[in-house]
């Protein structure tokens, strides 16, 4: 396309092209306006793709990695056996575990006395979930709106993680 090539005469007349532009914008206007009306929005699909965020939310995929969760047994204690697999594999080193000896008759020998995930340092890579040998750690909470009033609230403890 040569930049200096003159437009054909009917284009240089302005009006036909101006009216064509008018037609396009008016079409958008009318379709979207009718699409917003309560009755007609079943018939006419509006072209607006906006999601009104705080009120409506986009559906989150099941594979989406959100905040951590510790799976629990029927009695409510966590399935974690404090094997340190997740803490070892974690590239950001954000998992701190303190192990304790479980009492007699408990399902496992060890249990976590402390299990802290620092979400400031976490990169949400999901390696800890893959490393977990006993089905304890998950990232399927779909919780993305993690906001707190102070930084130390972002260190999630055992109590907050068990779900």
């Amino acid at each position, binding site marked *: 396309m040569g930049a200096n090539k003159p437009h054909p005469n009917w284009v240089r007349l302005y009006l036909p092209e101006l009216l064509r532009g008018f037609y396009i*914008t008016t079409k958008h*206007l009318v379709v*979207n306006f009718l699409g917003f009306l309560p009755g007609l929005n079943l018939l006419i699909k509006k*072209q*607006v793709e*906006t999601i*009104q965020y705080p009120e409506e939310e986009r559906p989150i995929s099941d594979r989406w990695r959100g905040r951590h969760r510790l799976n629990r047994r029927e009695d409510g204690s966590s399935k974690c056996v404090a094997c340190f697999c997740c803490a070892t594999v974690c590239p950001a080193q954000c998992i701190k575990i303190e192990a304790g000896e479980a009492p007699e008759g408990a399902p496992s020998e060890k249990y976590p006395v402390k299990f802290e995930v620092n979400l400031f340092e976490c990169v949400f890579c999901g390696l800890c979930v893959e490393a977990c040998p006993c089905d304890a750690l998950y990232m399927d909470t779909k919780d993305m709106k993690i906001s707190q009033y102070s930084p130390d609230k972002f260190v999630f403890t055992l109590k907050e993680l068990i779900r």
Partner: protein
Amino acid sequence: MGLDGLLTILLQCLWAIAWFLGVMSLAGLLTWEERKQASLIQDRIGPNRANIRLFRNWRLFGLFHPIADAVKSLFKEDFVPEGADKIMHTLAPVIMLGLSFVVFAVMPFAGPLTINWKDIPAESIPLLGRFFPGDALHLSDFTITFQPANLNVGIIFILAMSSLLVYGVIMGGYSSNNKFSFLGAMRATNQMFSYEIALGLCLIGVIMMYGSTNVSAIVERQGELWFGILPKWGVITQPLAFILFVACGLMEIKRIPFDLPEGESEIVAGYFLEYSGAKFVMFMFAEYVELILLATLITVLFFGGWQIPWVDASGIRIPLLGINLVWSELAWVKEHSYGLMVINFLVVLGQGAMFIAKLVFFCVALITTRWTWPRFRYDQVMRLGWRRVLPLAMVNIVLSGVVILLEQKYKPMIQKLLGY
């Protein structure tokens, strides 16, 4: 001056206030409407977050945004830049807003309403008759014109006052001590030279066609019919002048295809760059008032003003189709002495509604132009003004003359041919 004269003056004051309040509220609404319309054109939702938490979270499609905008702007700092001419800087928005309201003074918004008091015995008026027995008041026949000022030089007044609007722009731009504002003002001046003559010339065709510079006379004559069916609206008798007038009008109100004085992408905001707070609001408001002004001018001069096609104060008439309904011959009107007055009142109400409908339609259409067309370049505007619009406006004058002569000569023949 009798009672009638006093009543006329009172009514004119009333219409002036009505125009002022109407235009003010419409301009305020248009700030919201424009944003909403723009968003729909661009497949967005637009403003919908401003709310009033009274009983529940009221949003009303963002209708509170104009209020929020106004409150925000009024509480902002009123900033005058260093080295600016303070008096001129303050005066510019006042001139802009004030002058843009003046032009509405000659716009009629409904047809004349004739009240024949003498035909109506006071006792037959249902409610009012008890308070104002006709004999006690001795009112003569009275014609209400819905127009603040019925000037014989209406169109010239419109042209004169709307040309003065550019003073606000120039004063604002020159007094701001800012290079971008200065450029904006220069562009406004230059643009004015390119459109002003053409604007006057394309209205000459209209003046010729309707034989008057009085706006209400022009609107009145647009109620006549061509070939017994076509209403003689300006857009039908003067299609070329209509296109040219819209082009020149868009240049005059500095809206988008010709918004060079503002030119956001080139000179930031142009002439009102150094304005903030309430003064900025006045400039913005003046812009919307001018938009309404152009819509009103288009309605009044080219779309029959308050005319409802084929309907007027005396009846419904389409000669070509043989429809001829006269109000005063209706059985209901003959039964009741006030019947004709009620029908006339309803017709005037309908005419007012028609006028508002046309006005709002053209406001929306003009806003659509803003979100449709790109801005012309500086030299393109001048070329368009001088080399396209001006010659075409002159051609239009000649064409109008030819059409008027042909009409005078062949009107009886056509009437005989079509048989009405």
